[in-house]
């Protein structure tokens, strides 16, 4: 079955959430004390459950304390899941157990959309599997698109919310690519019905490390497909710019954000990502300052008012993909 287009005007629009903060346990004091600085929380749900691995029964156990914290302190703000465990690009199997766990997560934490990484991290290793712990790039070719399409259709059908994939950071590349980044992301979104989570810091990393022209990429990309953006800070190491999520954004990411924001009519939110251990050196004021700067840009470039979002009632159909703007 070909999935429906998420930009179908017959369906509900993406809500304008505004500026989000990616949850980390170390950010709890900030979330409790400075909740006026963000409009929603994004969370990697995998850190709030334990996966005991294939064959274990039960396979997953929720971190009740962590999930309860989110419920208490989100204070009515949406909690948007950004998962790492699906490994949607893995060739040897599709991780349906993870998809089932994501369904359960969304029952407890209804969200306007859900996202994952356009990559793989699970591979076979002899008779077992290995977890690389990094997002491994996929070849930008027709075979990759064909392998992803049925999986994305299944994810969208089972989760019942718009499903986004995040452009990957890559430090090495494969020769003979059939498409450049923009062509690949556009084809992926148009053919499979997924939205895009445009990580601007990943774009910046690929600019520095692989010679990608970030502005040209944004101009070539169909930005109507972008539902969420990520921004973050990084660090130089051995001649590479790393997606370390280690504090304030570099100027180049601010410039990409300023360029992209007015061109994304279906954008729901911009999320600031930071590894928890960087919170102390960065400090609450600096973090609040980053979020305030993002909000200023958001209001300058996104004319639609930031609105509240309410989960659909349980009895209503949950599918609520994008509506084409204009």
């Amino acid at each position, binding site marked *: 079955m070909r999935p429906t287009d998420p930009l179908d005007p017959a369906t509900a629009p993406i809500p304008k959430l505004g500026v989000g903060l990616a949850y980390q346990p170390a950010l709890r004091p900030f979330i409790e004390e400075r909740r006026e600085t963000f409009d929603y929380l994004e969370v990697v749900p995998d850190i709030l459950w334990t996966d005991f691995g294939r064959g274990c029964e039960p396979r997953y156990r929720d971190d009740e304390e962590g999930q309860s914290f989110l419920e208490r302190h989100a204070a009515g703000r949406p909690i948007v899941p950004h998962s790492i465990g699906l490994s949607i690009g893995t060739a040897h199997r599709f991780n349906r157990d993870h998809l089932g766990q994501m369904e359960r997560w969304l029952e407890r934490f209804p969200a306007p959309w859900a996202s994952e990484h356009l990559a793989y991290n699970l591979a076979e290793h002899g008779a077992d599997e290995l977890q690389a*712990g990094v997002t*491994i790039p996929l070849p930008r070719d027709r075979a990759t698109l064909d392998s992803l399409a049925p999986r994305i259709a299944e994810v969208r059908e089972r989760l019942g919310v718009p499903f986004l994939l995040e452009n990957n950071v890559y430090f090495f590349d494969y020769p003979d690519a059939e498409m450049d980044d923009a062509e690949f992301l556009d084809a992926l979104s148009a053919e499979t019905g997924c939205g895009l989570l445009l990580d601007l810091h990943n774009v910046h990393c690929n600019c520095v490390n692989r010679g990608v022209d970030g502005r040209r990429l944004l101009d070539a990309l169909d930005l109507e497909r972008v539902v969420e953006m990520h921004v973050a800070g990084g660090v130089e190491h051995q001649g590479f710019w790393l997606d370390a999520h280690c504090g304030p954004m570099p100027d180049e990411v601010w410039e990409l954000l300023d360029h992209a924001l007015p061109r994304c009519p279906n954008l729901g939110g911009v999320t600031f990502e930071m590894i928890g251990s960087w919170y102390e050196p960065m400090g609450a004021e600096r973090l609040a300052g980053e979020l305030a700067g993002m909000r200023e840009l958001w209001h300058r470039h996104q004319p639609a008012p930031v609105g509240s979002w309410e989960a659909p009632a349980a009895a209503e159909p949950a599918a609520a993909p994008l509506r084409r703007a204009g």
Partner: protein
Amino acid sequence: MTATAFQNAVARLIVDEPFRRRVRAEGETALPGRALTAAEHRRLLAAAADPGMEITATLHRGFRLSKLLGRLPLTFELLDPAVSRRELDAFWAERPPKSFYYIEEAIAFSDYLARHAERLAIPYLAEVVAFERAGLELQRARPDGSPPPPQRVAFEHDPTPLIEAIATGRVPESLPRRPCELVGRRVGGDTEWTLTERPLPGA
């Protein structure tokens, strides 16, 4: 199946340094020949030679190391960097990364160090490893949700000054013997430790 073989080889290039070196040195002969197309061979050889592969491997290793450092901070204070690297290489060579949930790996590394404590001959290592392992066991989620059983750790030296010193980056030159046992229990969301004296042998 070639996509699977290709992905497996890329992942192995990232996590397996000897394999990476072999592919760079020997080229196609180091790759699983029959399972890959000519184009996949070309892509793998280019990826292996790409300087970005080395930084990806560094990120993988750094991520994995950070997860162990965060769970075994006292243990790593006792291991100088060269020893850490050598022992992690040996441990990781027999244990590919399996999960994002590194508490299991930290417990396995504790067990590895306990098995090799005599060879390593590092003062206090066996006691400190046992103590941190017990703390991890008390934090580990269990599939049935049951509370963890109490953890008993035998010490030959007074654990309070020992742990306090190591936690501040100092390894005591000498501590008087004080055979005792720490018993850890999970109470609410916290770990509580109780100290019990053990009589000195012959006392």
